[in-house]
């Protein structure tokens, strides 16, 4: 176990309404504290918006614009331009969205902001589905996972957003997990110190959505990282890949076993998914070696 090197400065308040045991609240706490007080936030409909809370309450100390689902990056760009017009170019613009708001309906505006290299810190809480509307698939839902709209398991793979973003050659892309909070904190700090478009994808095992036990969110996230299904990486300028670990430490089965959304899988299906993780891993290691 690594010790968490962390002081809470109170940027995320208690009393939020995340499901008990959800690791998203933990991630938000670390991110908001690292981003600090000189920041303006944008959030779009998602669990994140729910956790931030309804008017007049807010679980964040910084102000948040609750924008529309498809406009996260465009709204953040608007905030940034207004700050710049007012001579406040150093204020951080923090944009929070789910995977639906990022991989699907918001991809167009995200791509545009990335292409313009807007100076925003965009964080996607990736719980691999539309949880706010009751757990339907998104294009981030992995192959074979069951959701409300893929009751027999999704037939297509998870969209590779990292490579899509890398193709935009933005300064910084990273993946983080609530199981590795020091890594998360360090990456947020690094991103905050950079100019231009930064995107951080946070894996959030969804308790009801994935069928994970109330006390197993962090453990499941750790298994996702250590089995290589969700490696912790950084991509700088779309070209330089870094992977935090040298090898996979768990078979995929250990990760799948935590979740009801994969319970229908047969041995063959699991082997197929393992082969896919192995291939993606080799490819990633290849990219990192370049």
């Amino acid at each position: 176990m690594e010790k968490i090197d962390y002081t809470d400065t109170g940027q995320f308040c208690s009393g939020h309404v995340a499901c008990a045991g959800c690791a998203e609240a933990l991630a938000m706490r670390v991110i908001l504290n690292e981003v600090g007080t000189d920041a303006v936030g944008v959030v779009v409909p998602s669990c994140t918006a729910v956790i931030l809370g309804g008017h007049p309450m807010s679980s964040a100390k910084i102000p948040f614009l609750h924008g529309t689902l498809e406009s996260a990056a465009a709204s953040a760009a608007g905030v940034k331009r207004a700050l710049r017009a007012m001579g406040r170019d150093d204020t951080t613009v923090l944009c929070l969205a789910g995977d639906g708001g990022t991989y699907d309906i918001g991809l167009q505006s995200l791509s545009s902001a990335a292409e313009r290299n807007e100076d925003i810190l965009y964080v996607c809480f990736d719980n691999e589905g539309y949880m706010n509307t009751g757990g339907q698939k998104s294009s981030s839902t992995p192959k074979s996972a069951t959701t409300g709209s893929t009751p027999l398991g999704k037939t297509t793979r998870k969209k590779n957003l990292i490579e899509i973003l890398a193709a935009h050659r933005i300064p910084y892309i990273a993946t983080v997990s609530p199981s590795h909070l020091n890594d998360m904190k360090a990456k947020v700090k690094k991103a905050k110190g950079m100019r231009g478009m930064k995107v951080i994808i946070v894996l959030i095992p969804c308790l009801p959505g994935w069928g994970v036990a109330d006390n197993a969110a962090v453990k499941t996230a750790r298994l996702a990282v250590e089995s290589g299904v969700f490696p912790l990486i950084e991509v700088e300028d779309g070209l330089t890949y870094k992977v935090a670990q040298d090898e996979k430490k768990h078979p995929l089965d250990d990760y799948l076993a935590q979740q009801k959304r994969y319970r229908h899988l047969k041995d063959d299906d699991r082997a197929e998914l393992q082969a896919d993780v192995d291939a993606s891993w080799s490819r990633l290691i290849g990219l990192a070696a370049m």
Partner: protein
Amino acid sequence: MNAPVLNEDMRLMNGNHAVAWGVRLAVPDVAPLYPITPQTPILEKLIEFQSQGQFKAELLTPESEHSAMAGCIAASALGARVFTATSSQGLLLMHELLHYAAGARMPIVMFNVNRTPAAPWGFWPDQIDSLSQRDTGWVQLYTENPQDSLDTVIQAFRIAESAGLPVMVNHDAFYVSHSVEPVSLPSADLVQSYLPRQAREIKLDTTIGRSVGAPVDQVQWNRTRREMQIAMAGIADLTVQAGQDWAALTGRKSAPLEFYKTEGAEIVLVTMGSMTGTARDAVDRLRADGVKAGLLKLRLFRPLPLADLRAALARFGTALVLDRNYSPGTGGVLHQEIKAALFGMDDAPGLHGLLAGVGGVSVPVETLEALAREHLGAPTSPDPIWVE
């Protein structure tokens, strides 16, 4: 009417360039823009001004009008003065965010060039694009020529920032957007004195940490609409005041409702936008021929200046409403609105809704003249009438 002032800077320009000049003089902080025919000359002129160092706004050029409006809302939440321009498909793409902008009380100014929406594709003057946004909570003004567009876009910033509501100014595709006329350019100092930089409300304030647009309960949502109603109720007066103050500086008058030769009129033509010019000519010809005709130009469509409209229309025996738009299943939008406005009035005029110029078809002066003669004194026509 234009009262030439000493050293007046008169230039020939089209309606869109007049808008761009008005916006340049209003000095917005942020301008998210996306091209669409026939709006594009507004965008191009502003970008040209910027490349010459004469327009300093942050230009945001995102991938769509939807994102442009999202950017407008967000920038406005920081207290920035914000402008955008669009037309037809672009305006319709923004629809969700038009509701948002008004509900969040963002004083954004937008110029819309009225154009037919697809299908089928067309690029012709027709006001259904903006009229179909009438329930979004935006103030809507309609202008009839390039000078009117320049004057009105400047006034729109005053109205928006005073009321805390977004304002959409509209002019017709090509008839106004691309027609070249002499335009009197006010000086930068004059516009600055008319539009002083007030300390605007910063809704997203890092020292307070309050959120904008966060979920509310039913009662709170209901209250936002009641508050919008109060703000809307003040718009007619604000528009009158904005027009009077502008007239004091430039000599050019404007009002929510404008009248032409209505003294003693028995029949009045009701218009919005570029049709006004044609209707004015028709009135002149009718008057010359002894027909007591007049013109009522509706400049402020949202909120509809109800009390003034009722009082004005009570003076005439017959009213012909000219709609350059068609709402399928009902008729002309202006006709519906005026019908509703007149409801319950004993002295309401005979009302006739003419679908004139839908899809940009030309409506000659002679046609309007003939229609006026035909309907003079006729009892109300229940159904809209397509003008050939």
